[in-house]
């Protein structure tokens, strides 16, 4: 007999949305969208493409809902899909860029509107993401996957198809660069 306790509790809206319930899907999207936009922005240079890629990521999440197994946090499952979708978008945008042309992923940072609207946390995160914008893409990718998505070094190595030591080195260099950029000195 399978003990009842072994069955994890999953938000019923996930099943409903996976079964085609638009209202449930809409509710999930409303709740997930801020997180999705923020993760996309951490991964993507500049603000201008964030909403397009966030929408693309939401589509991927909705399409994959039916295969969410409930054996981990739903948000973590979503984060990984968002990261994967964003990487694909970055590659696509990079490929669309002609030689010598400004890269399509080098989006502009929006200035003015909304600045400081979220208080100290918002200001800190803007500083952080603007520092990330100045890092090499590989280091940025490793830092975000580790600190925002919570992936371990072996998981990152697997996700980006890079050797373990390479990822560890990218993380170390990225942290040093980030600390320098943000004016911190604590290790």
């Amino acid at each position: 007999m399978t003990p009842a306790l072994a069955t994890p509790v999953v938000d019923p809206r996930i099943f409903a949305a996976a079964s085609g319930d638009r209202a449930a899907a809409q509710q999930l999207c409303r709740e997930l969208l801020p997180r999705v936009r923020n993760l996309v922005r951490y991964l993507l240079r500049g603000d201008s493409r964030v909403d397009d890629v966030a929408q693309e990521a939401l589509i991927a999440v909705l399409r994959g809902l039916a295969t969410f197994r409930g054996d981990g946090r739903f948000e973590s499952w979503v984060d990984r899909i968002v990261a994967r979708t964003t990487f694909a978008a970055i590659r696509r945008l990079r490929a669309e860029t002609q030689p010598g042309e400004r890269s399509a992923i080098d989006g502009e940072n929006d200035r003015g509107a909304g600045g400081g609207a979220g208080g100290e946390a918002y200001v800190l995160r803007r500083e952080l993401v603007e520092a990330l914008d100045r890092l090499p893409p590989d280091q940025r990718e490793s830092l975000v996957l580790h600190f925002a998505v919570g992936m371990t070094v072996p998981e990152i190595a697997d996700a980006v198809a890079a050797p373990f030591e390479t990822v560890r080195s990218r993380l170390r260099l990225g942290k040093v660069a980030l600390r320098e950029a943000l004016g911190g000195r604590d290790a």
Partner: protein
Amino acid sequence: MRDLSDRKLEEMFQLDDRPGPARPADDAALAAIIAGALGGAGFAPPIAARAPAAGGHGAAAATAAKGLGVVKLALLAGGAAGVALIGWVWLRSPAAPRVTPPPAVAITAPAPAAVPPSEPAPPPPAAVAEPDDPDPEIEPEIEPARPAIKSKPTPSHRHPARVAVAAPPVAPEDLLAAANAARVAHHWRKADALYARVVSGGQAELAVQAALVASASLHLEHLGDPAGAVRRFRAALAAGPRDALAEDARWGLAESTRATGDVAAEAAALDDFLAHHAGSPRAARARARRGELQAQP
């Protein structure tokens, strides 16, 4: 001086309810993103939203969805052409959203199993659930249909004959939901039997293909039947070789052929994957594995 220990960095990066680093967006912009995502994932718009003369929220949602259908999804064209295409699925069918296999399919394939050296030709989707299927636990679940719930038959463009013969009374989205619930509870065979019922029902192409891919991953990952996974992934590809699920099916085919130990079939599957999805996040792994195979004596 600012403390930037790893712990502080984790706090700064945390994906919580506080704003940032994405710029704040107004409600209309957020609603437009969501409407476009729902349309892109194949969710039918609300009935009220279809009426162009309607006012209030319905009209706003319709406008948002339509505008995004044209503008936002057009931006997805190119590398994400498949995703963009399904943005219009709701125009022809209010079917359940498409399903992709789990995002983290095992990279290390299971140990090779004893299977015939050559796979039979890809069967049509219904063949997976036919009585010659080797899994005895699936069989009894396929044929009978529960009479209590009335189905909503959807015309099939690919299998019109089967629609005329079989009319399962349970809607495929209900079966998929039940299968997914069983999967969450780790009742693999029950889940697989439910997927098989979706396949044998055959009235909704999207659901059939989703069920085939989901069932194939079950056979590969949990049922110890890589040969069955190969058949199902091939059937899913036969049902929609250019569909948005095709990437997952091709990747799954490469993994399951690897698990069967059929090197030639795995190499062919990897070549096919790279020919169709060179920009995929899995392409690097596919190339690396292809290189390993080439280096083998």
